[in-house]
């Protein structure tokens, strides 16, 4: 097997109150484009980039996350990579923008369960109340000493991405903290 994220999730993280799984291979892009081009960008690529900072839009197999005033992450199933490569290359040719493939820069965790937000608050200082951090909200933030990308996918489900070398650190933190749940 050529693809290797080198992070094992132990059984102890598959609890009833909270469960952590490693996200499978993904296509990821960092996209920088001027907000004035968003409408044209959608016409060309079919990708709807949310205009509001720290929000996300999920469509079929592609999720677009707005993480800065002119910065988006495009995250998709690995099987869509060839298609997205072409679409974004087309966009690169047309717009003043920057597209960078970061598929392998990150690893991702899915955290679900009634105590999922509690596990996130072990290391992340943001308020995880549903009013303060509604479904679909996304942001870069901190989990103890790791920079993370945090997204709420449901009332009791979240995705956390981090640079790949911080993955085992987060996993170890989850293992240790989940013992208290």
């Amino acid at each position, binding site marked *: *097997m*050529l*693809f*290797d*994220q*080198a992070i094992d999730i132990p059984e102890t993280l598959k609890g009833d109150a909270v469960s952590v799984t490693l996200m499978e*291979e993904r296509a990821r892009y*960092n996209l*920088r484009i001027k907000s004035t081009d968003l409408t044209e960008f959608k016409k060309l690529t079919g990708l709807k980039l949310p205009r509001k900072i720290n929000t996300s839009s999920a469509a079929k197999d592609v999720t677009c996350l707005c993480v800065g005033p*002119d910065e988006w992450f495009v995250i998709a199933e690995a099987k869509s990579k060839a298609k997205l490569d072409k679409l974004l290359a087309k966009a690169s040719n047309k717009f*003043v*923008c*920057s*597209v*960078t*493939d*970061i*598929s*392998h*820069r*990150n690893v991702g965790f899915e955290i679900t369960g009634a105590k999922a937000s*509690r596990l996130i*608050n*072990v*290391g*992340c*200082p*943001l*308020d*995880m*109340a549903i009013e*303060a951090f509604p479904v679909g909200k996304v942001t870069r933030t901190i989990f*103890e*000493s*790791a920079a993370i990308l945090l997204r709420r996918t449901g009332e009791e489900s979240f995705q956390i991405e981090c*640079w*790949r*070398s*911080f993955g*085992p*650190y987060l996993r*170890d*933190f989850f293992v*240790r*903290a989940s*013992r*208290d749940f």
Partner: protein
Amino acid sequence: MSAFRKSGRGMVDASKPVNFTFDGKAYQGLQGDTLASALLANGVHLTGRSFKYHRPRGIVGAGSEEPNALVAFDRGEGRVTPNVRATTLEIFDGLKAESQNRWPNLKTDIGGFNNIFSMFFPAGFYNKTFKWPASFWDKVYEPFIRNMAGLGPAPKSSDPDVYASVYGHCDVLIVGAGPAGIAAAVAAAKKDQRVILVDEQAEPGGGLLSAQNVEIDGMAAQDWLTKSLTTLRKADNVTVMLRSTAIGYYHDNFVAVNERLTDHIPSVEPGRSREKLHRIRAGKVILAQGGIERPLVFNGNDRPGVMLASAAQTYLGQYGVAVGNEVVVFTSHDSAYQAAFELADANISIAAIVDIRDKISGDLQQAVEARAIDLILGSSVSKTSGKLRINGCEVYTASSGKKQSFQCDALLMSGGWTPSLHLWSHSKGGIKWDADLAAYVPEQANENAVCVGACNGNFGIEAALNAGTKAGGGRKKFKVKEPEFGSGVVLDHLPNYIDSSKQKAFVDFQNDVTEKDIKLAVREGFKSIEHVKRYTTNGMATDQGKTSNLNALEIASKAVGKPIEKVGLTTFRPPYTPTTFGALAGYRDGELFDPTRKTAIDPWAEAQGAVFEPVGIWRRAWYFPKDGEDMHAAVARECKATRDSLGIFDASTLGKIEVVGPDATKFMNLMYSNSWTTLKPGRCRYGLMLREDGYIYDDGVVARMAEDRYHVTTTSGGAPRVYRHMEDYLQTEFQHLDVWLTSTTEQWAVIAINGPNARKLIEPFVEGIDLSKDAFPHMAVREGKICGVPTRLFRVSFTGELGFEINIPSHYGRTVWETLFEAGQSYEICPYGTETMHVLRAEKGFIIVGQDTDGTVTPHDAGMGWAVAKKKKDFVGMRSLKRSDLIADGRKHLIGLLTDDPNVVLEEGAQIVADPNQPIPMDMLGHVTSSYWSESLGRSVAMALVKDGFNRMDETLHVPMPGTTHKAKVVKPVFYDPKGERLNVV
């Protein structure tokens, strides 16, 4: 049932006896007891020796303000906690506790001689005495101080427990679950606020737990408490946290609350967290911390059995414990009468109530008379007696000169009440002096916070309930039937016929500070209360003067001759109570202390037995020892193998930034000292980055992937700062440029292949790239595939050999590495680590930023003037390079050093001088920056920053090292293949 237990009283469970030991002796208490209440139930008051004089001391209070009863709490090997307040330690079956500061045992203590010679230990004694002769320091003074100083034993092994931490959020955080706090919580809960209510005790209720003869809205106080707690526990929006101390209040309503999870449990399963630090951000903070009763400062007030009146009340009401059989009450405040009455009503004999005031209210007087208690007004206790426990006291009436003696086994004192302002003070809330209360009370808030109840100077349960309700957003008014709280007076000095120099009137029990000490400090010129505090150490013990600060202030203000409000209060600082390091660390111990970043190839290196070194928070393979090799042998072998045939190196940690946009070249021209205009897509260039001050900041190879796209590499440790440096300029000074940055360090695994056989190795695996010498020259980059996965292939060399750096998406890194390593066997491929990398680059004179430079080295100083474009109009650092200081003569230059003795490897950091025989201090010319054994050259090589180095070529300099001084010749810092011919392998 022990002698001092009053059956049918308190919250303890008489059906559940609990066995524990104190100083090895077995005792029995009840479920619900603290160590203090259980000891008192057994008639034990003596719990420790004092810090300085080793005087016998007993229990003074009933809560976390306790200054005296500090014990070592022994939970087994490695789990002895010193300085635990017996008043907050919940007992359980098998609990072990030891007294402190005594030797050989609590009743006979050698250090007690300090007490006998206490006239030698006035304020500032240590500062004054242990000054000279200097030779006395390590032989006499320090051993003496070490022996005597310190409270309790420090743990000898690392803490075997684990701890937890979590962030919390709420609309309203309430500190203190007494009447005010509970009323606030009930009111806020009704308003649909997210409420957190914390209390340091195991039982919520505060003063309500021991309240006698109190009715709230027609209900007994305890019934109201139960009802309210049930309401709170049922509410989804309320969290009640017990055994949880708010230890610190920080900016923007950020409060640290330490929850003790297991210390009260007899046996704890391994791995369970002992304490959890909640880091809570609150919309509003309601402080309902209550008040602390003030001791009276009188001669002999530290004898075991002398305690706060309110504490005796709590022991009786909450724990059903009588603190004595024959009790004298000594007070300057009405509130102590209630304590006396409650004890008397429980059939405890009150020998007398001594009040320093000449007159009390008629109601009080009647109540005293109704109980036939002896009341002595206008008088004070002039001395106490009893060796390890009070057995009597003398009462002195100044107006008549009359002295009366009483036998007693407990003496209750009350000097009035101090609102607890600790957390309010952490939050930088203002305070003002309230002359009626003779106390500081909160004034303007600095955060969205409010003090309610006793900590706001509003004493009494009705006042607390109503203030709490209002703060919680409610409008309800409570009707409470309760004894009047009353009032009192505060004196700086209690009348006594005994000469003040012969009195022992303690202010700070824990640090053994007396009234005399404070007056002496003022006489010696310390006028500021902060200085008095430090000179006398009053309020500097583990209790931060909870019981002593106001008394000290009163005494100091009179001695200084200034009103108390002009003297000011000393500053309270977190933590509110002593806190374990474990709680502060939370989960962050061991592996979780800091992340250890590992590359995709790291598991392979580990399996090969590599030795690792930390580089920032990366761990990198340092060298790969083969059977029994030491580092020197391994590195020599790795160097030789690479130069002779083939080496493979994991360079994945190199920082990488993708610079993309139509203005990418303009941006690169501004950020680097080199010129990028002439670099064509498909080519690489060494880039040198300066700070605005002209000094070298970072370096690395930069590849131009396309007209508008650069693949920038940085040093391994420099990636974050280079990224920040670039973003900073891009967002502020160079906003007009259309260019964006993306950190791609971890997108790519990087495998460096070096050596004459490098091309031969990779050729069979590469698709879509012509690797021939002319098609793919040195300093070129191509995109294609290797082992079937996409690659950015660089032809670069940090070793001087034919070299390639293969960038592949990280998650393919290990497989590609293993494939190449397998194929490399026919070339005797050698994996090498960072040490060999350093040697190979030093042989070529390539610098390491941060090792051969130190933040004060210009490109010219480093011999790299060639990397500064001459024709550019602007780049970061350009103007500074023209500063007179940076072009002056006599700057340090980076040069090579060859030792006369080729076998000597100079120490990195060793100083360099021109003449080793010059007088000391010598004129230092510089220092060795890099130094290695070069296997290829069969001798040592070194680089050094040396004053005026470029003008010293062939000069012999001297490098003193332990034992001997070595001679070394200044040379150009390129030791190996100076013409670079080895890159030209076909």
